[in-house]
């Protein structure tokens, strides 16, 4: 028997934070590829600490629903799961290349395949582009458009910027959009000045975040000048300094994220049958539509 654990942050304050986690886990459940699929959280239940014991499978694939390698993937999750002998060096990663480590755990007789985060997987590049397609409602969007991929920046974690730049470079190489630019919340080039970095009139802005929350629904829209007050919502596209900004909201709400989770597990040796094809075929939407902005998103700052 094999089990999948989708490990996410969750929130004590905002119930919506875990919606994408549940949605992607459900999509994977539907494929029947795993005998058990379980969500686990830092701030919700089951906690990372207690998830392994809820499984009957001997073989467990843990995929962190996080954007970058860093504090959570290197310290918190391995510690709370009781991964025995874990050392971040085992990933042998340059900051975006972690794939998998196979370890045992301290509280159960199981083999755990601890995977790299979804955010740095190559398949994530397609999800970002897919998000741009959805927000513009144009499956061929690219020509005449700029694309901005937005992340935290290095203040919290150096690898966070690396992940953003990694996908930005990959999209740029595809020559699909006229311009592609990485932007950050807490370092240069800053998302506040988004229009300074693009000549294209139309710019799609995709935040590389796993869930919508304070940053994607309050900070970024206000900082970019889409709205004076996030509670009033904003238009998609919104006119800013002679540009049209197509703001996509968190990429993690995109259906196709389930595919990235599966790819991670497959890279770690999970037997998936045709699950990836099923998930790709079914990925026709998102947990929250990017244009579904009425300013009532119940977002609250968690700060941790």
């Amino acid at each position: 028997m094999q089990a999948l654990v989708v490990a996410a942050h969750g929130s004590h304050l905002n119930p919506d934070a875990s919606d994408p986690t549940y949605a992607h886990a459900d999509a994977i459940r539907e494929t029947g590829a795993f005998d058990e699929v379980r969500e686990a959280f830092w701030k919700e239940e089951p906690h990372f600490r207690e998830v392994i014991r809820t499984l009957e499978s001997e073989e467990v694939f843990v995929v962190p629903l996080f954007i970058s390698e860093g504090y959570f993937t290197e310290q918190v999750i391995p510690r709370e799961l009781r991964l025995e002998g874990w050392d971040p060096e085992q990933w042998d990663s340059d900051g975006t290349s972690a794939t998998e480590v196979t370890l045992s755990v301290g509280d159960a007789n199981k083999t755990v395949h601890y995977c790299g985060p979804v955010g740095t997987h190559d398949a994530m590049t397609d999800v970002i582009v897919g998000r741009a397609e959805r927000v513009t409602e144009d499956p061929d969007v690219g020509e005449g458009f700029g694309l901005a991929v937005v992340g935290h920046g290095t203040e919290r974690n150096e690898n966070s910027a690396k992940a953003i730049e990694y996908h930005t470079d990959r999209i740029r190489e595809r020559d699909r959009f006229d311009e592609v630019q990485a932007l950050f919340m807490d370092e240069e080039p800053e998302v506040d000045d988004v229009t300074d970095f693009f000549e294209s009139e139309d710019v799609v802005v995709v935040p590389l975040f796993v869930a919508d929350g304070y940053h994607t629904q309050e900070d970024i829209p206000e900082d970019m000048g889409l709205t004076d007050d996030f509670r009033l919502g904003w238009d998609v596209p919104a006119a800013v300094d002679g540009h049209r900004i197509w703001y996509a909201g968190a990429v993690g709400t995109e259906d196709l994220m389930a595919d990235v989770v599966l790819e991670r597990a497959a890279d770690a040796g999970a037997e998936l049958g045709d699950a990836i094809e099923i998930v790709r075929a079914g990925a026709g939407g998102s947990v929250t539509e990017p244009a579904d902005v009425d300013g009532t998103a119940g977002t609250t700052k968690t700060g941790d």
Partner: protein
Amino acid sequence: MADATDSSDPVDALLATVDDGDVAFDGLRLEPVADGDDGRFALETPTLDRSTFGRSELRDVLETVEEYVTNWYYWQGDVGGEGTARRAFLRWCERAPVVGEAVTAPSAETTLEANRTARETANGTAPETTAEADQSLQVPQRQDALRDGIDREWGQLCITARFVDVDEPDGVRVYDLWHVDDADSDVADLEVYDDPRTAREIATTDEDGRYRPLKTAPTLPSGWAFTGLSGDELVETVGSVYPATIANWHRERLGELDVDHWLETAERQTGIYDVVDELPRDAVEWMADACCVDSQCLRRREWEYEEGDELDVDGGDGPFPCREPCSLVVAAARKWAILESETERTYELELTTSEFNQLGELIDAVAEGRTDEIREADLGDGANRYRARYLRAKRFDDDGLEARKRPEEY
């Protein structure tokens, strides 16, 4: 999973299984005896003395102890999962003897489970043995009880185990689940569901639509029912409402609950939670009183300050244990660790005796979550909104409560 699944007829399945070796389960014993070539079998149940039969007679005899056969078929074929928490929980649901319980009848579930039971009973380590064991039912009693349905409570959940076919039970059970407050309600008045995933949504918010970050808070909304769940679906549904409770309950019964006490958990924390191990011993006591008592959380707190240093606050009476401070308590501890680093000061302020008492009433009302219940015009209650607004109008200045700090050197 046992061979039993290979055949859809319980008697056929049992005959196929006994060819491979002894069957001993819930009072039913059937074993091949080396006696001649065509094979004879010894059969015994609590109501049938051990006798031997040839294969051809055996089928007819088994029909007479059908309840033991269908019971065996359900547990070994449908449920399976020997030694798992899922199986133990489903057995608990119908008061069948479970791991960790002293069982009176020697012929109860043998194999691993009974061996463990015997070992733990001998060590005296098995929790809550006698009280539970007295209530556990053997096959004939369960057969009757499952026609009516056997009810159990798990936090705010009420679970009923029952036979699918009441008139001619074939051993197959289904499970119904609802809120304890709805135990006397007509199912027609409840929202009825059968998809375990719906439970996730039900458990997300309380009766007033507020988010429930602690799944075991006693604030589960009522008004719904799941009916006709399979055993697996029941376990999944309970797992959505009260995650990991079954797994930890099972470990506790085996005497294997791995408790992490406050200090171990606190010292493990890093990042913004690095500070929580600075929380004073007294404050941990107050914290457990604030967060972990039964009125706030249905998990029974088994963690203490540290090994050998128990907290005075009552851990609660719930069926499922809490094995370490949860994330909500750790987050709260961070707040208190920071607040407790402030030094105490003495303030002077003017209040009438009633106003002083009113402060107490206000704190009490908030702490008990009672503010919503105080009637608009109940001016007799110190936590009434008009009373609070009046006190604020009278005693607050621009910075809040008007008071003088005593100089530090005092």
